[in-house]
């Protein structure tokens, strides 16, 4: 378990900058979905990517800080229920950390499946459990409503994290070099 929770300076910097990118994408880069007036949040793809590279602490904080600051700018105050859910999603994505061969320059079928199972679990827990649960607890939102909203979020964020996260990890793996392999030309 310990391997997941080491916090180095790099983890902190990745968290800070990752949260900045999360916010930026949350605000500007949405992929319009086939359903009118809805879109895929590319931000969750980035959160999944950073969580896989830098671990659950970074992933969780990126989701939490990024979403909280985004809400603060947009609405003046964070909506805690969904902010916390974003944090939980990012945290769970982080269990892909050191569980794939991406750092060694390989991200193939087995790793892709592993990563996607983890991100789907993360999205399911965040949007079908945490977000609706907190909405009911804090605001007494109608159960049907929050679960319907949660389901939409879970599906669209899982697609976003799946497509974008997977592409990133493949691209990142191709930039990694194997140990002792670089020779000067």
């Amino acid at each position, binding site marked *: 378990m310990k391997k997941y929770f080491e916090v180095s300076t790099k983890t902190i910097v990745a968290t800070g900058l990752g949260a900045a990118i999360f916010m930026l994408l949350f605000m500007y880069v949405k992929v319009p979905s086939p359903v009118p007036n809805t879109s895929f949040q590319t931000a969750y793809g980035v959160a999944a990517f950073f969580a896989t590279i830098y671990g659950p602490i970074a992933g969780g904080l990126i989701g939490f800080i990024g979403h909280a600051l985004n809400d603060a700018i947009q609405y003046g105050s964070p909506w805690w229920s969904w902010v916390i859910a974003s944090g939980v999603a990012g945290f769970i994505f982080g269990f892909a950390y050191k569980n794939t061969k991406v750092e060694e320059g390989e991200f193939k079928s087995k790793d892709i499946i592993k990563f996607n199972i983890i991100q789907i679990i993360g999205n399911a827990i965040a949007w079908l459990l945490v977000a609706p649960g907190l909405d009911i607890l804090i605001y007494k939102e109608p159960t049907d409503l929050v679960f319907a909203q949660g389901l939409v979020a879970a599906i669209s964020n899982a697609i976003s994290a799946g497509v974008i996260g997977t592409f990133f990890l*493949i*691209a990142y793996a*191709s*930039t990694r*070099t*194997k*140990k*002792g*392999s*670089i*020779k*000067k030309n």
Partner: protein
Amino acid sequence: MNKKPIIEFKDFTFQYYSQAEPTLHNINLKIYSGEKVLIIGPSGSGKSTLGHCLNGLIPFSYKGDIRGSLKINGMETRDLDIFKLSRFVGTVLQDSDGQFVGLTVGEDMAFTLENDRVPTEQMKERVKEVAKMVDMENFLTSSPYDLSGGQKQRTALGGVMVNDVDILLFDEPLANLDPATGKTAIEIIDRIHRDSNKTIIIIEHRLEDVLHRHVDRVILINDGRIVADMNPHEIIASSLLNDNGLREPLYTTALKYAGVNVTKEILPGHLYSLKTDDIKDQVKNWFKSIDKEEEIKEEKPLLKIENLDFSYDSRRKVLRNINITINEGEMLAIVGKNGAGKSTLSKILCGFEKHTKGRIFYKDEDLKDKTIKERAEIIGFVMQNPNQMISKNLIYDEVALGLRLRNMDEEEIKERVNKALKVCGLLPFIDWPISALSYGQKKRVTIASILVLDPKILILDEPTAGQDYRHYSEIMEFLKHLNSLGVTIIFITHDMHLMLEYTTRAIVLADGEIVADDRPSKILTDKKTIEAANLKETSLYNLAQMVGIEDETKFVQTFIDYERWLKSKDEQ
């Protein structure tokens, strides 16, 4: 100097885990307390690795095998961690934005003290003291977005000096600065050296700029080995710079052209130390002997900018009354301070921003209603950092991107991509992953990915930033080749060598206006434009003055023409 060494490498070898061979081989080097040492070497020589060993980033952040010994202040560094080392060694990194982590100058300078748990009140006192030393006391509450590159670097310097370290390590301090700011930086480092008597180590490849002030020793590194350890005069008198792919000072090149035997006796290490009494006549005679007729080129206007104004809001104009005619086949430079409007102008040309007044013509066509995408087929823009453009894994896909987005059929795409790759010398790498390429090769990929759209004009933002002489020459010769194929090229740059060696015209912007539009030899010898654009006079100008040549501009032009003639002779 009979002091004890503060830094001592003994048979020191280092190999990164990811590398198949050591990056540093058998280094033996002593640096004494209070010395000012310059470490030079081409990129990939190991000079930065040496710096990382001194400040502890190796092995703290970069893992590898260490053999031999490195002692700082008499202590073996492998027994110290990065935190203990940072008490003796303060590092000013080349990326001043990366080093500036605080939200304001004061906070950033206090960063080390915060981590050392110094009480707030005491911290504020100390920061004030240090801010004074680096001339930043009036900016303590400024945020990094309001500061110039030089001010950010001074903040970084203050940030390591709060700790009262013994050794100051500067890792490529000139890399991100314009010439005038770079000159000031070298002067500040020199002042601190004299006032505090700290040991100073500067890692750079821009030799001439560092030698603007005194240094005790120059250590030349290549292929991970120390090639030379001598004083500035000795190294410049030797052939070691050229042999190791480094640029010698321009004034020494001029002396050699004039047939002067550059020996250490004439003290060529610094411009200010150079003894000109015995060589004056030689230089003057050479200057007189060269008489070149003005070459008159036929001028065909390609791009015309007329009375152009631009502002983001209605209050302040970023560009005012810009008039430029760019002729077909030109290679020209747009220069000016940060914020003078250079990048805004290029954004307007590419259609990223819409000008508020005036007109832009390509040949006789008004570009007003052309979209970004359409303009890209006339004017291509290459960003400074190739990593900011590359999004594909394979070279072929990256270059084909622009055509695929235009829904061209794959047959034609293939043809055009192959052509662009051929022009850029990348055909042998066609199936390579981009990550396996060097920086220069990546740069070519991005240029190819723009060329594939067949633009008539190419705008390049600082194409050689951070490159050593060999890579600089490689990139620039390639661009010259492109130019000879008929592409008109505009550089946005601070690089004075680039201007002198590769352009025939420079346009100087200051506060949104054109203050000069002339030959580089004229621009770089004119005090007023030099100041307006944060440039500095070329050392050729100073040399001309020192030997008593009155027409300095003509001397500089003669040098340029002579050098081009030499090169073209070489090529034949």
